[in-house]
């Protein structure tokens, strides 16, 4: 079964500094990988996904993520964090051969300090 690990509970970063949220995955075949963001008392908003092709994926709000097959990682990055980026970030994976079951990581709380 597919699974995702987000090793850190909280990521603190100063405004204007680079932001990285880590994600590693486990699947039996080729992965489909997703990042979502959840603001307080809101639903999940889609940020970006990797299906195939270029390992560097660009998404909404200036976020990008790099797929690394050898390290089974899909870290989310933003060159310059904003206070408004403070939220809960989820990495998710599904198996190419499976049904549409998405496995989510536990989420990372990002706090951007002004």
């Amino acid at each position, binding site marked *: 079964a597919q699974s995702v690990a987000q090793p850190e509970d909280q990521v603190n970063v100063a405004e204007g500094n680079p932001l990285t949220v880590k994600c590693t995955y486990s699947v039996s075949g080729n992965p489909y990988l*997703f990042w*979502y963001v959840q603001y307080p008392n809101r*639903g*999940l908003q889609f940020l970006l*996904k990797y299906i195939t092709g270029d390992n560097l994926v660009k998404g909404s709000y200036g976020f990008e993520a790099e797929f690394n097959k050898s390290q089974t990682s899909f870290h989310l990055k933003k060159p310059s964090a904003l206070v408004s980026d403070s939220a809960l970030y989820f990495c998710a994976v599904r198996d190419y051969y499976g049904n*549409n*079951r*998405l496995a*989510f990581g536990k*989420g990372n709380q990002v706090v951007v300090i002004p």
Partner: protein
Amino acid sequence: DTAVSQTPKYLVTQMGNDKSIKCEQNLGHDTMYWYKQDSKKFLKIMFSYNNKELIINETVPNRFSPKSPDKAHLNLHINSLELGDSAVYFCASSQVEGGETQYFGPGTRLLVL
């Protein structure tokens, strides 16, 4: 234009009651889902329907019964509510193909007293 909508947004009820949550999507998707987010923010899929047919049914108590009257709607009925059912329930939708993005509704915050 709300893509995935849920009603109600908040639901406070007593133990033992029966309640329903409704979900509608106007994205033209053929697959809909119910997820449960617990107090620690863990997200777990409960059910998935494709073209009104149940395709994912996780280990969920049979007090939970999903119903899909058509492709655009997926409702969740919960019988005999328990304290542990308190959570946020999210509806989502997508096309069935594997790489397709799932789009989430705003959530229904259920509190069982």
